[in-house]
C-alpha cells in the first residue's frame, strides 16, 4: 500500500552575509506539496518577513493573520496586498536568537486551483502565528521570494530550506 519514501529536500540557502531577499527558484512541478522551513533573523527590530511567488509583485495576495504573544491575540486580514505575511512580528538581531517560519504550500503545481498557504511561525520576541495566505493565481509555483517590505535585511546565519512531498 505504501509507495516508498517521498519527502525530499530540494534546495537550501544559508546566508553568509546580510541580504535583502532570498529567492528559491527553478522549483519543478514533480511534487504534490512544498514545505519551506526558514530559520531566520533580521538585521533590524522592525519589519516582517514577506512572501511572493513567481516574481509576481502585483496586489494579488492576502493574508489572514492569527497571532498570539504574551499580551495580544491578533486576528487581522490584509487583502489585495503585494505579499503574504510570513510572520506578524520582526525577528530582531539578538545574537543566537533566531525565529522559525514554516510554509505549507499544498497542491502548489495544480493549475486548477488558486494557491493557499499555511504559515506557521514563531520567535522569542513577539509570539507565534498561524496564518492563512492566498495568491490570486492558478499558476504552478516555480519560485518563492522571501523579503522584508521596509528594506531591512535577512541576517547572516539565516537558513532557508525547501522540501517536496509527493503523494502516491
Amino acid at each position: 500500500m505504501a509507495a516508498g519514501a517521498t519527502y525530499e529536500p530540494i534546495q537550501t540557502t544559508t546566508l553568509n552575509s546580510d541580504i535583502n531577499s532570498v529567492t528559491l527558484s527553478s522549483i519543478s512541478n514533480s511534487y504534490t506539496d512544498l514545505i519551506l522551513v526558514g530559520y531566520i533573523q533580521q538585521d533590524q527590530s522592525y519589519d516582517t518577513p514577506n512572501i511572493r511567488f513567481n516574481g509576481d509583485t502585483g496586489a494579488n495576495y492576502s493574508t489572514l493573520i492569527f497571532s498570539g504573544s504574551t499580551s495580544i491575540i491578533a486576528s487581522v486580514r490584509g487583502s489585495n496586498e503585494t505579499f503574504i505575511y510570513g510572520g506578524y512580528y520582526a525577528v530582531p538581531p539578538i545574537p543566537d536568537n533566531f525565529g522559525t517560519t514554516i510554509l505549507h504550500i499544498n497542491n502548489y503545481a495544480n493549475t486548477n486551483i488558486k494557491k493557499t498557504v499555511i504559515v506557521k511561525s514563531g520567535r522569542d520576541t513577539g509570539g507565534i502565528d498561524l496564518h492563512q495566505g492566498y495568491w490570486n493565481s492558478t499558476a504552478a509555483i516555480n519560485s518563492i521570494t522571501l523579503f522584508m517590505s521596509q528594506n531591512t535585511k535577512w541576517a547572516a546565519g539565516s537558513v532557508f530550506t525547501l522540501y517536496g512531498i509527493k503523494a502516491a
Partner: protein
Amino acid sequence: MPILGTVASQFAGKPFSSFESIATYTVGAGGESEVEFASIPSTFTHLQLRGVVRTNRNDPRDALYFRYNGDTGSNYSWHWMHANGAGYAGGGSDINVAPTTCWTIVTSASQATGGVFANFVVDILDYKNTNKNKVTRSMTGFEPNSGDGRSWFISTLWKDTSAISNIYIKSPYGGTMQQHSQIALYGIRG
C-alpha cells in the same frame, strides 16, 4: 521527519525514508461525498493527512469530520481556536457531550471566492499504540481575499486505544467535495 534544513543540502534529491505516501484520493468531475482510507498498515509510528478541499455546501465554508475504524459511538471530542481576520474564538465539544464524530478539517465551500480550496495538515500521533486513546492536531483553513476566511487550529480525541486501521471522512453538512480536491495519507516512521 526533518525539522530544520541545516543539513538538507547534503541530502538533496535523496528522499527521507521515514516519510512515505500511503494512499491519495483526488476528486474527479463528479465530486465525492465521502472518503475512506481502509487497511491502513501498522508499520508506521505516526500518520499525516495533507491536501486541499472545497465542497459544494451553500455557504462560504464547510467542515470534514473523521471517524475511526467504523466507530459510530459517542466516543469523540474536539477543541479548536480560530481567527477570521476580525476576531477570534475558541471552543469545542467536551467528551462528556460525546459526539459521534470529530470535526477535523475546515474547508472552503460554494460561496467562497472561486478557485479557493482550503488546505490542511493533520497529524495523528502514535496511531497504532494500543495503550493510548488517539489524538490529532490540525492546521486548516483558507483565506479567500474577501468574504469569510478562517485559520483554525484543532485538536481531536477518539476515546479508544485500538490501532487506527480505517479513517472515514465526510462533511457534517452534506457537502460534496469538489473536483480537484485531494486528500493524501502519509506514514511517518519513528
